[in-house]
């Protein structure tokens, strides 16, 4: 994914969550099934509520039907 | 009115514009005794994205059933405003929702901006009835069908239990127009 305006990155030392707002269709799957309640819906897009709570289980990424959310290790920036 | 009058209701899937077009067409064809043809977009264009419902009303027989030089465009999304406005005929009418359509370009047509969705949500309590509010606005603006006709048609199509809310939405549409500021531009396109 090229870094464009619609790409929103949320990051802490351990975790980096990237959401492609153009591709996100607002299905809420990532939010609903995140075991940590890390995510929430803001209008019809998923956003990170609390990056620190993420345990990087990857379930949101695995289940997002739209290739719109990506979880990786924080770059420590 | 005589001759052909073309209306396009443009928005996105789920806004109920197809139904609005059907109600309008039915009002004209069945209750006002005119001729009407309603068509709509199908396929990828219709899924999720832009949706359009075209109604042609005429006192004469309608041959060509597709809208091609619109007398009236209703735009409930920016995309439909931008995409369809070029097909409005000189001197035509463009009605748009003031909250959803922000980027309004002027041309050889009359622009009418009204808070349709807001009215539906605030006054009626259901954004879903924006389509009926629009209908009211169009009827008030153009008189293309009689109010009796559109009301009969609406009542025939409204699911049981929603008659009242729909009637209110229609009237809210009438009222919106009565109160609205009308911008008219006579561009030289």
């Amino acid at each position, binding site marked *: *994914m090229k870094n464009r305006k619609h790409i929103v990155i949320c990051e802490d030392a351990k975790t*980096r969550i*990237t959401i492609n707002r*153009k*591709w996100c*269709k*607002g*299905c*809420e*799957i990532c939010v*609903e*099934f995140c075991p940590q309640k890390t995510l929430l819906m803001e209008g019809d897009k998923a956003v990170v509520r609390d990056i620190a709570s993420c345990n*990087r289980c*990857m*379930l949101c*990424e*695995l*289940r*997002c*039907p*739209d*290739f719109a959310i*990506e*979880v*990786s*290790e924080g770059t420590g920036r | 009115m005589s001759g052909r009058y073309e209306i396009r209701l443009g928005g996105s899937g789920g806004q109920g514009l197809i139904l609005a077009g059907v109600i309008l067409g039915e009002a004209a064809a069945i209750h006002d005794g005119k001729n009407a043809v309603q068509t709509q977009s199908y396929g*990828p264009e219709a*899924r*999720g994205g832009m949706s359009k419902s075209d109604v042609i009303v005429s006192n004469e027989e309608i041959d060509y059933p597709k809208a091609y030089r619109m007398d009236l465009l209703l735009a409930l999304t920016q995309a439909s405003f931008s995409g369809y406005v070029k097909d409005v005929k000189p001197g035509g009418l463009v009605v748009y929702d003031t909250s959803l359509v922000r980027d309004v370009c002027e041309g050889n047509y009359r622009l009418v901006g009204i808070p349709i969705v807001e009215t539906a949500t605030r006054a009626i309590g259901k954004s879903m009835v924006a389509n009926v509010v629009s209908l009211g606005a169009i009827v008030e603006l153009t008189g293309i069908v009689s109010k009796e006709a559109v009301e009969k048609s609406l009542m025939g199509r409204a699911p049981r239990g929603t008659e009242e809310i729909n009637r209110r939405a229609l009237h809210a549409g009438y009222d919106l127009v009565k109160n609205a500021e009308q911008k008219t531009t006579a561009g030289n396109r």
Partner: protein
Amino acid sequence: MGFDYMKYLREEKMPHIWCPGCGHGIVMKALIRAIDKAGLDQDRVVVVSGIGCVSRMPGYLDFNTLHTTHGRALAFATGVKMADPTLHVIAVMGDGDAVAIGGNHFIHTCRRNIGITTVVANNSIYGMTGGQRSPTTPLGDNTSTTVYGNADPPFDISALAVAAGASYVARTTTYHAQQIERLIVSGFENRGFSLIEVIGPCFVAHGRRNRARYKSNLDMYREEKETAINVTATKGKPQSELMGKVTIGVLHHAPMPEFTDEYQKVIEKATHVRTI
């Protein structure tokens, strides 16, 4: 972490046409990961589909891709595989594609045990055409062609495949995203025909018409989660306890000779034995 799907996606074709919450995207991602994990050569993979929502998948995938006619994916795939048995041939179909109009090709391809890895995205409905009953729609459901409730009993696709002779049959749901991937990978490992049935939701054309069960697509995913039972956990359980459950996991694996391998033997015989 963070799998890079872009290597295998035709990014310029994205976002895909599927509705919000449609399970087809989950299947597509799992397939991509499975191909990656199995280390298949991108140039040697052929993905074949029929017609339907899920059958649009090949258009997004950066392989050799073949979007055919409704129901015929496996027949086209058979031709591809016969022409060049070294290709990795993958078929993706919907339930309508696979077992309504395509049912005959489905059972024959199972029978033949030809090396095609087949993913059936079973959403129990014809999504593409707007929600008509499919041969996997549950009894009683409302669809656009069964407004009084469906009276036409459904298939168990996996059971049908087993009876037809498939050598590898696995099932899971879109809720079990990781398992899809694993099951496809072991499907690749089976030399012959492998079926991976993935049960998924179509809220727009199915769920919406059955509001009593589903308020949103999320309810459909929840149902997948709740009704699924791993095949390993079913052992010994009485039939009554399994009612309404969907067995997931590898349901059947009985390796047998692959068809193009067997045909190679025919070629060898033919080039040696000469009859008049």
